[in-house]
């Protein structure tokens, strides 16, 4: 047998249900809007690191589930999040991506809010006499915010479980690192790519695609036994991958990192990943840490936000080393992330309009090697939240 006929191409593969993903999940508009309601409006989202709002009155703006947000540090030192929408007639309140301001005045009719979300002034309030509209009940909508090891998470659902319940211990693969290190973000970039958000996130969970990256073929695959790898899936769809190693000098032109100053508790050749459901990833590689989020824009477009972190107070020389190490792999001119985005766009080409019918996630290496168990864990949680089996998510 070589090529396939329409019949054999279209028929359900001879695999257990959970071992293939229907192509509809990448292109169906109803699925896309259900994802916003059932997943992105319900889960805890990493929004920024506390070093981005280090000082009193510092703020950052961003968006999650199409909801614009302001994250700000109040006079009491607490980090709070508000929907960046004016209570008056719905205009955007804060325009800048970051800054420092004691109050925020809406450009439209000059209602002013403080860093605790209270409306502190509105011009000519007497015009509302007798209507019940007054600054006391016109504050910004606050969004649940929790900080874990310096990482700021928000949840748009007031009824959600606590952050730790959502994380379910998945970040504990960094518990030798994160509680001991005071971190600082030195790299931030955002990039829109032409792909469904899941196609990008899958590149992080899919270890089999190591073959696609020269750097992983050269530095990671030969560096340790496939049997030393440990991929763990969590009931709520998070995945952790530990036991990866890298010999960086095996890539032509790179040097080893053996004497480099690492994050506490990590060896220079250590690599570990925690892709959290649905699309936020924490990764360390000995000397560097990256945190990514992917957000849906349309069924065919997503936004990647990527951060690089170093140790607060480190020397200029150490910081430069960390920046270089980050850029080698992960910067927009690096050798790795660019290729993952290429892969996601390559899948969009075929899934976007339905030419590709399904993807196979049937590798079973018992959580070692290049096992697809992480992908199956991701998709199982997707099905649970969406109320649709990922192998047959629509009625057609």
């Amino acid at each position: 047998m070589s090529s396939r006929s329409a019949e054999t191409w279209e028929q359900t593969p001879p695999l257990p249900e959970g071992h293939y993903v229907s192509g509809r999940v990448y292109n169906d508009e109803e699925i896309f809007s259900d994802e916003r309601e059932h997943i992105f409006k319900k889960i805890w989202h990493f929004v920024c690191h506390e070093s981005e709002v280090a000082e009193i009155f510092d703020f950052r703006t961003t968006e999650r589930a199409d909801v614009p947000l302001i994250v700000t540090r109040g006079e009491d030192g607490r980090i709070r999040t508000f929907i960046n929408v004016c209570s008056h007639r719905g205009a955007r309140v804060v325009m800048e991506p970051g800054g420092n301001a004691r109050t925020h005045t809406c450009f439209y009719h000059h209602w002013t809010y403080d860093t605790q979300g209270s409306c502190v002034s509105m011009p000519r309030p007497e015009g509302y006499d007798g209507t019940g509209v007054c600054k006391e009940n016109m504050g910004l909508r606050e969004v649940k915010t929790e900080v874990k090891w310096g990482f700021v998470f928000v949840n748009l659902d007031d009824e959600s479980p606590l952050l730790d319940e959502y994380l379910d211990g998945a970040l504990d693969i960094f518990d030798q690192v994160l509680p001991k290190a005071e971190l600082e973000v030195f790299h931030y970039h955002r990039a829109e790519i032409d792909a469904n958000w899941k196609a990008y996130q899958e590149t992080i969970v899919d270890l089999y695609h190591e073959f696609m990256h020269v750097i992983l073929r050269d530095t990671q695959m030969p560096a340790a036994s496939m049997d030393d790898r440990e991929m763990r899936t969590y009931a709520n769809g998070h995945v952790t991958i530990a036991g990866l190693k890298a010999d960086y000098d095996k890539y032509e032109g790179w040097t080893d990192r053996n004497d480099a100053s690492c994050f506490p508790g990590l060896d220079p050749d250590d690599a570990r990943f925690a892709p959290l459901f649905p699309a936020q990833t924490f990764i360390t590689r000995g000397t560097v840490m990256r945190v990514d989020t992917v957000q849906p824009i349309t069924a065919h477009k997503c936004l990647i936000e990527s951060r690089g972190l170093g140790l607060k107070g480190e020397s200029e020389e150490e910081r430069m080393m960390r920046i270089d190490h980050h850029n080698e792999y992960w910067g927009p001119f690096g050798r790795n992330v660019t290729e993952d985005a290429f892969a996601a766009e390559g899948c969009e080409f075929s899934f976007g309009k339905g030419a590709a019918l399904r993807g196979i996630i049937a590798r079973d290496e018992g959580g070692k090697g290049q096992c697809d168990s992480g992908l199956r864990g991701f998709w199982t949680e997707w099905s649970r939240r969406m109320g649709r089996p990922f192998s047959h998510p629509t009625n057609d």
Partner: protein
Amino acid sequence: MPASNDAVRELIYRSCRCLDLQDFDGYIALCAPAFRYRITLYSPELRKEMIWLNHDRDGLTALLAMVPRHLVRLGTLQRNATVYTIDRNEADSRADVMSAFSVFNIDNEGRPSVFAVGHYHDTVDLSDDQPFLLSRNARLASRDLGIGSHIPI
């Protein structure tokens, strides 16, 4: 005889053309031994300066030599540059040269899109009639590079 401004302009344009054609040896030949290449930009999110690439001449040579082994952005990149200012320091035989650039991506179907916009801040060695690049800071004004690029700007 020190390099003329015309020769400096030609150096900048030639550097763009070499990268467009992926003539990496040709590009490196325009760089002095002490060459330093950087891509920098300001992040209004972090309110900090960022460095997105940082190499000496050897590092850049090695990086460019590996490009053919990688899975790179489809199509070609085309740089359009204009030299804005050449500030000569005859005593040091150097010039600070500032140029505007836009980089277009032309995909395999021929569709153009803007990849990046910014300025080159170059230092040029004028001591001979043939000028060389001593440093290039490709300063990005745009910050969203889509899938990114293995080839510097």
